[in-house]
């Protein structure tokens, strides 16, 4: 199969971090460390030898407990981290809806932030201008668009951030647990937008703890546990396995 049929390919990817026990932030600490020769950090692998391929147009759910490596994996796909070893191939543009509002500045107005955020997500100035009206409409901001965003309510802030990211119209959309943005009406609208996106044949990687969303939306699910990919299959199978894992955790204290 030609590679272009895949949007994302990960091959034997390892991401290790230096977990700092005490951080040598200053030179004094560096000198102290040289004198005493003690190790202040240890390496730990957040993602261990993960391989998978996501086809174009697939919607894949990534599930697992807290700290299982889901967000790290998303950041690897988004290109924020360069993995310690292994290979990552991404075909197409990516918009990460990982943490919304990256690069928003509180003193700037909504409109100014749309431009800045859009440019950061890889659009050109012209593309941002073309999308501006749609972004403002989708975010339901009305007159507030020309006020500094520090005056926004947290809901308005998140709606604006979500709207910018979704209107970037990337080939690959990465979503990290953000469907809780805004009120019920806005959530519904976001949901519909994501479904439109899927119907348009775009690839979506989706992290969620809400199993019904994974079951209803995704074509396929991946289960991560302690940094390893433990199951890859249909959402219902993978969710069942995840429930087993959760059950074990609940049972653990009883066994001790």
């Amino acid at each position, binding site marked *: 199969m030609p590679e272009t049929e895949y949007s994302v390919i990960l091959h034997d990817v390892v991401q290790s971090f230096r977990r700092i026990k005490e951080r040598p932030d200053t030179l004094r600490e560096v000198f102290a460390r040289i004198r005493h020769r003690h190790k202040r950090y240890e390496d730990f692998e957040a993602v261990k030898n993960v391989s998978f391929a996501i086809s174009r147009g697939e919607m894949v759910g990534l599930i697992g407990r807290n700290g299982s490596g889901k967000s790290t994996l998303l950041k690897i796909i*988004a290109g*924020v981290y360069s993995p310690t070893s292994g290979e990552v191939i991404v075909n197409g543009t990516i918009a990460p809806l990982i943490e919304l509002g*990256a*690069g928003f*500045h509180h003193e*700037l107005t909504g409109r100014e932030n749309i431009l800045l955020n859009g*440019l*950061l997500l890889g659009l050109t*100035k012209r593309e941002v201008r073309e999308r501006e009206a749609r972004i403002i409409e989708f975010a339901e901001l009305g007159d507030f668009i020309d006020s500094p965003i520090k005056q926004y309510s947290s809901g308005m802030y998140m709606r604006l951030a979500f709207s910018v990211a979704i209107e970037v119209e990337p080939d690959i959309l990465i979503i990290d647990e953000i469907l809780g943005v805004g009120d019920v009406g806005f959530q519904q609208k976001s949901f519909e937008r994501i479904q439109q996106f899927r119907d348009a044949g775009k690839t979506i990687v989706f992290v969620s703890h809400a199993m019904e969303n994974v079951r209803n939306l995704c074509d396929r699910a991946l289960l991560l546990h302690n940094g390893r990919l433990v199951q890859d299959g249909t959402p219902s199978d993978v969710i069942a396995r995840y429930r087993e894992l959760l059950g074990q955790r609940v049972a653990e204290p009883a066994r001790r």
Partner: protein
Amino acid sequence: MIEFVRECYRYRELIWALAMKELRVRYKRSVLGFIWALLNPALLMLVLTLVFGALMRFSVPHYSIFLLSMLLPWTFFSQSLSYSVESIVSNGELLKKVRVARLIFPVAALVSNIINFLLSMIPLFLLVIGLRFPVHWTWIYLPIPMLGLFLFTLGVAFFLATANVFYRDVSHIIQVVLSAWFYFCPIIYSLDFVPARYRWFFRLNPLVYVLNGFRLSIYYGLLPSWQSAVLSLASGVGALALGFAVFRRYEKSFVYYV
């Protein structure tokens, strides 16, 4: 180097937007807004002219222009560094969230300071006219020392921004280094006042060549010797090549340390 130019061109809109953001944030919520970029150097010049014109008299005629011709580029240099040394660390949250070319941050910090610097040349020009000081034709030579200054500053900025990611001490140390460096540049005095046997020391300071072009063309109305012009551009290009190489070498690990 080619890589550097290509990336700057590719991200020109983003760099510009970030630079404008920095300026806008700097002057936001002040009544006079952008006018401060002109007013600030103008008021400084007024103070200096009064102090050195009326209170303290030096053997240097029109000392205020003598001083400002170098003080303004110096202020640009030191302010740009104070800004850009933090440019990666202060955008750390952003680096952790989206994939973005890291070089845009130091470059945008520089661009915003360039705009400030160019604006500050306007009151200087007005002062020259106001004091009936001759406006030398050599003003048109200024783009050359400016280019040298901008490249040199950016090179140092790349280096400092990188170092500051790993050791936050850098942003404190640089303040001390800058204030010492200030006195080792012939800004408030002339190199002629320095005994001949110490002058070799000043020749080691690449910034002297860069700054000298400003004073020669604004104050003396002379062009620098071609050697000194070449040296000032060469120190700019050299500093940038070196600083950018260091930045490139470490930029991938920034995200783990910010």
